[in-house]
């Protein structure tokens, strides 16, 4: 492929990582949702570019899903939920934003090292793509782990899943990508609905440990 | 054939002789003791008289005594008698000496003690219990000590047969050994304890808190008591004979009638000496507290073990 297309793909993938960092940085819930929308948009762009480069039209579906479902529907739904459930606007983080960012840096470095080490003979685009995808995944996980707030964790999960889609699309000619992205969208829908149904306000596990014990009789 | 008859004769003679001599030895010890204390003391044959008188009396038996109580005296007597009759006294090479070696003889005395201790508990009185409990406690130290002594002798003589040991020690190429000295001291200590002599026990006492053997036989009377008394004398005789035939094993290796007479003389001399020594020893010291006896016996056991170990070492040196 041409140098230019390579650079663009590279740029988009890198952009995704950058936006992941922005996600990590946010501590306001609405801002977080907006940034996530941006995250999804960048993903859509990157997927579309891949579709164009690999001229794999079915990937455009994935891009569309990313754009419509993730960049528009889910964020707005979450906006609603936050408003409806009266969730705190502030996102509690574990160990502050700064250290989290540092950890994120380390993770990106780690994923680059790992990927470039193990993918010796894959073509460069795929290598870069995979490396960035892995960093996005790890950053997403990191976010899930460091956010005490349910919405924050959902966003983390979704960004992680974006990373997966990036990887899947980056893998040349990989079949089932569309199906997989659909499956994931369903998963996310479940989560969002779950949050709404189970009235999960602050955390994934509303019940505190003591209550758990009482319920389960795990401690006398 | 003649040898067989002779052997049987000697064996029978031996059994009768020990039976006949045992009370005499007891009487002799008492006599010497009395003299040492400046009394005239009873005549030598007093023990025979006592035995006769006892056997003629009716036996008074506690109401709740069981058959075991009445059988025990005879069992004890028999056990001790058999043991004593297997020890070479005036003649080694006894007909049946091989039927029980030294270990078996100790075990025979052990069975006698076992039944005596049971009889002590049979009537269900406090004193009987005291006696049995103390008896078995002391025995629990005396028996291993005795076994250690047997080890020492057996390792030197290469046999646990008393007659063989005596024969080998008789040919005086064994020489003097540290182990033998230790063994001798240990053996004497054990003998004192086993026969209930001062300082371990006092055969004459009826001071309840100190008595051991007497407490067990407290309920006995008449012929039963007689059997037990006789057994006690036999035991004393047995131990003295053992010491004699092991440590002064002279004048017993013979089968001709003349030599047998000689052997009898030698044996009598040894017993007299032993009895006298015992009496003097008893008069010269006081009885110890019951719970110091365990230390006494423990010392005996240690000596025996030491003797054996030394022997193992020396054996490995040559």
């Amino acid at each position: 492929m041409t140098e230019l297309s390579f650079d663009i793909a590279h740029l988009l993938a890198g952009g995704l990582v950058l936006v992941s960092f922005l996600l990590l940085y946010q501590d306001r819930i609405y801002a977080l949702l907006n940034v996530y929308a941006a995250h999804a948009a960048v993903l859509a762009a990157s997927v579309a570019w891949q579709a164009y480069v690999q001229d794999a039209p079915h990937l455009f579906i994935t891009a569309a899903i990313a754009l419509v479902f993730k960049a528009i529907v889910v964020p707005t739904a979450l906006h609603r939920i936050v408003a409806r459930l009266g969730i705190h606007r502030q996102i509690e983080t574990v160990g502050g934003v700064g250290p989290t960012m540092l950890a994120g840096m380390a993770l990106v470095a780690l994923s680059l090292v790992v990927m470039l080490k193990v993918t010796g003979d894959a073509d460069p685009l795929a290598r870069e793509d995979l490396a960035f995808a892995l960093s996005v995944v790890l950053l997403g996980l990191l976010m899930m782990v460091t956010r005490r707030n349910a919405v924050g964790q959902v966003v983390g999960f979704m960004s992680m899943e974006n990373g997966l889609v990036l990887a899947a699309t980056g893998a040349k000619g990989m079949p089932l990508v569309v199906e997989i992205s659909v499956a994931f969208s369903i998963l996310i829908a479940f989560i969002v609905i779950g949050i709404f149904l189970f009235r999960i306000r602050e955390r994934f596990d509303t019940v505190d440990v003591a209550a758990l014990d009482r319920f389960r009789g795990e401690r006398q | 054939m003649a040898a067989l008859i002779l052997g049987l004769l000697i064996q029978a003679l031996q059994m009768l002789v020990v039976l006949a001599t045992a009370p005499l030895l007891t009487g002799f010890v008492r006599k010497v003791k009395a003299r040492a204390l400046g009394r005239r003391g009873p005549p030598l044959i007093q023990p025979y008289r006592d035995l006769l008188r006892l056997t003629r009396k009716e036996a008074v038996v506690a109401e709740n005594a069981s058959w075991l109580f009445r059988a025990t005296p005879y069992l004890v007597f028999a056990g001790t008698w058999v043991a004593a009759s297997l020890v070479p006294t005036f003649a080694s090479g006894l007909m049946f000496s091989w039927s029980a070696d030294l270990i078996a003889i100790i075990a025979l005395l052990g069975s006698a003690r076992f039944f005596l201790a049971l009889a002590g508990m049979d009537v269900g009185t406090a004193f009987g219990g005291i006696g049995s409990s103390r008896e078995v406690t002391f025995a629990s130290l005396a028996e291993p000590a005795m076994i250690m002594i047997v080890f020492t002798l057996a390792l030197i003589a290469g046999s646990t047969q008393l007659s063989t040991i005596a024969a080998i020690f008789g040919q005086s190429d064994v020489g003097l050994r540290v182990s033998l000295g230790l063994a001798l001291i240990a053996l004497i200590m054990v003998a004192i304890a086993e026969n209930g002599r001062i300082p371990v026990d006092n055969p004459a006492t009826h001071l309840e808190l100190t008595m051991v053997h007497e407490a067990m036989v407290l309920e006995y009377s008449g012929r039963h008591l007689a059997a037990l008394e006789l057994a006690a004398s036999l035991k004393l005789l047995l131990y003295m004979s053992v010491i004699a035939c092991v440590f002064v094993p002279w004048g017993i290796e013979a089968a001709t009638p003349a030599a047998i007479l000689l052997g009898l003389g030698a044996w009598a001399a040894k017993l007299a000496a032993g009895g006298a020594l015992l009496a003097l020893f008893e008069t010269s010291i006081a009885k110890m507290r019951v719970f110091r006896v365990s230390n006494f016996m423990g010392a005996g056991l240690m000596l025996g073990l030491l003797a054996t170990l030394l022997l193992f070492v020396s054996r490995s040196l040559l």
Partner: protein
Amino acid sequence: MTGFTPEIAILVIPLVAAAVLAVIPGYRAGALLNVLACAATLLTAVSLFFIERSPPGTYFLVDDLNVVFIVLTTFVAFTTSIFSASYIGHELETGRLTPAYLRFYHAMYQLLMFGMNLSLTANNIGLMWVAIELATLTTVLMVGIYRTHEALEAAWKYFILGSVGIALALFGTILVYMAALPVIGEGIDAMVWTTLISRAAGFEPALLELAFVFLLLGYGTKAGLVPLHAWLPDAHAEGPTPISAVLSGLLLNVALYAVLRFKLLLAANPGTFAAGPLMAVLGLASLSFASFMLYRRRDIKRMFAYSSIEHMGIITFAFGMGGPLANFAGLLHMVMHSLTKSGIFFAVGHIAQAKGTQKIADIRGLTESHPLLGWGLVLGVVAIAGLPPLGIFMSEFLVVSSTFARQPLLAIPLVAGLLIGFGALVLRLQGLAFGAPSGASAPVKASYVPMFIHFALVLVAGLFLPRPLVEWFEHIARLLG
């Protein structure tokens, strides 16, 4: 593919049954249909032994490895359906479930069967991934079916952790595709398992190992390996007991089966060595951790859930050790554990219904109050604790002795873990089965047939393994290297 192909049938039957069950009212009819569908699936699965196998296609595959799993799965599914038929009636009486939920329950049950059969027959790593996700989602819904606070909480925990696991597994799958790309070229072929394994020798080893890391973590979450196990105990404890039986007996196996498939892939590549040690370490961790956790359990179902973690650890360790003996033992242990553990959950379900509680402290003297149930539980726990003459003893014997002969140091934590778990199980068993009985002693009206069928099978297997089964196992053991 022309005519009757069982591997398709075992997928179609559950789907249709699920559709029908979703609409027909009346739980008796539903339960009956559920049993019938499972029976039909079982029969078709058994027919796999006899009829000519169709050659592996792009999407489906039947080989020595998965045929055993398929038959096991369908069999346990069948017995469990019988059990659940006699179980849910009581749930309806006590009002824990409504008819509507029962309809949903039965439909989900069949959907779960579909998902598991699909993931077992899948010859395409992507398809396998989708199938396992489907199975997970259905079980999530069933775990939460009681709608109690803790049931929902357990379902939610299961769901979140499961989703993360799914994500990791997908990344691993993508990496495998990437590894295959240079050798096989673009397109569906690079995801077809048979193709992959035939060409695996040429793949980039490092990439494969990285992929295996993700796959092990992803599918290992499903298999309940420590430290990814957190969802398992609560899901077992809070869901309906039939589902606990299916989870422990089947879903964990399916997840491990996926891991095994990829271990085969790595085994086929000479350059890789990481798979074995990784699995061995995770296995040991699970074994030791779970056996300690057994001591402080106060909920009977949660306790046996931890015992499942323990045994998954043993199996993973065995496969990690590798070698014909250990692999054989691992497979055997897998089968034995499925049968025993589901049998135990049958017993536990009836016990919990009879005593009206799941608290171990409130259940005592079962052998007096409910002799059949009590002795059944004793038998089951004796089996799961690895005592002869039941089957698990044989597999544990092979694992431990072969390990000790090769890696004496590894055997020490293994034995320690086994012993500690054993102590905990016996302790609880004595409390449950003996002593003065407590609580209600009214006889439960339930069919003990499934439970005793399972235990009888385990007993027979402990004494005598049929030749064909042994040959399959040996064949697979050789494949696993």
